[in-house]
């Protein structure tokens, strides 16, 4: 952790640096935690405005936890245990033109089930899993963003994968068959 050269972050240059460093991570975190139906951008920016108002009292080193805590509270004020729904991109990057109609149907059902399963994961596991596998962030990076140890990230991702596997058990045979067929 670099030493705080400045006591506070009221200078715009420093503040914009902090924004560029944390805004995306905070936004992503809010999205994964609370889903899409509440505007994560709004809460993220509101948290930064709060940080600006308190810029005299917040040291650069504590800006991250300040932002995450404030944004989290802002979200919690808005919702009380609403069902979290993860959206997925309908259009897949690769189009399989040679898939059978059966396969395409199965694929659609799989994604729907997957989406539902993500919604039922505990918040912390979902956030960590999606940061790791959807955004391809390294576990060390995630640990830094969330302010936890690398070990915690590893086990959260692993536990999430176990739960997802259990939820999607019914597709096991299908994909096993499919891959063996391909082989």
């Amino acid at each position, binding site marked *: 952790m670099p030493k705080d050269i400045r006591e506070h972050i009221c200078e715009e240059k420093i503040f914009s640096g902090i924004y560029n460093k944390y805004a995306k991570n905070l936004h992503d975190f809010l999205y994964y935690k609370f889903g899409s139906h509440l505007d994560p951008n709004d809460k*993220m920016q509101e948290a930064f405005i709060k940080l600006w108002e308190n810029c005299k009292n917040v040291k650069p080193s504590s800006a991250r936890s300040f932002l995450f805590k404030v944004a989290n509270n802002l979200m919690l004020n808005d919702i009380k245990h609403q069902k979290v729904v993860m959206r997925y991109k309908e259009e897949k990057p690769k189009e399989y033109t040679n898939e059978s109609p059966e396969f395409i149907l199965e694929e659609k059902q799989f994604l729907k089930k*997957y989406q539902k399963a993500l919604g039922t994961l505990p918040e912390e596991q979902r956030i960590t899993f999606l940061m790791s596998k959807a955004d391809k962030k390294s576990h060390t990076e995630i640990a830094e963003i969330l302010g936890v140890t690398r070990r915690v990230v590893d086990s959260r991702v692993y536990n999430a994968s176990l739960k997802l596997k259990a939820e999607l058990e019914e597709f096991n045979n299908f994909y096993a068959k499919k891959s063996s067929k391909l082989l």
Partner: protein
Amino acid sequence: MDKDYLNKKWLAGDLTEEEGKAFELIEDNELLKKIVDEAPVFSVSHFSKAKDFDELKPQIDAKKHLKKKHNWLNPMLKIASVLVVGFAVYFLLFSNNTVSIETAAAEKRLVQLPDASQVTLNAASEIEYDEKTWADKRSVTLEGEAFFKVAKGSNFDVNTAVGKVTVVGTRFNVKNRKNLFEVSCFEGQVLLTYGKEKWAVLPGNMYRIINGEVTTDIVDAGSKPLWLSNASYFKKVPFSEVVQELERQYNVEISVDENTANQLFTGGFNHYNLKEALKSITLPLKLKFVMDSSSKISLHQIE
């Protein structure tokens, strides 16, 4: 190798080469791979992106203006409060409401004190008192000569460089000139403190201190000092004192030789006619006076 261990390491992305081979050999792991492979479709980047700092900037600038206003206001408020406190302290401590009344030569003045007491100042005299603490402590400082008519009440102090005069309610005269200190009591009772000694001055009595020597005399009790009726009277007083009194009453300068100045003089003069006054002090000592100018007079022996 343990399957769960390998899975965990694979998820964390730190399988060694050897472990990677082992992982590939695990059966029925297709679902896990599929889950991980498909995860990117849920990436937030497809749906929502964090806004740029530029979009936040206007809001922050708005706050900054507010902040700047405060920054400017705060020091001003500090300065203002310091000034207010300063003034308050100044008025409480330093403006002790001291009233000072002075008379010039050839001037007499009647002064009403905060209670019903009255002071008549003779020429070239000054009294000082604190108006604010008057109710608690009746105390005046006197330089020169004054006649006091003190209303009944608590102790009334007259402080002079020579001694302190304390009374309760009475009429008395205090004269505090260069080498002459006199306290005459006309009514009531006066306590005179001179150094370590104290005397009670009864009506009709007078204490006189000349050059540290204390003598007593009598005055006409029930009346008032002669100077209040525009005349001065002396009894066995060095002639120099008489001359000085005349100087004060007429605002003139009188020169007299030393021998004559030390003679004791009994007599008086009026305050309204200079020539008559000069005659009344020179004739008994066989002197004549010469008016060198309108305000300079010299006295000479008649040969």
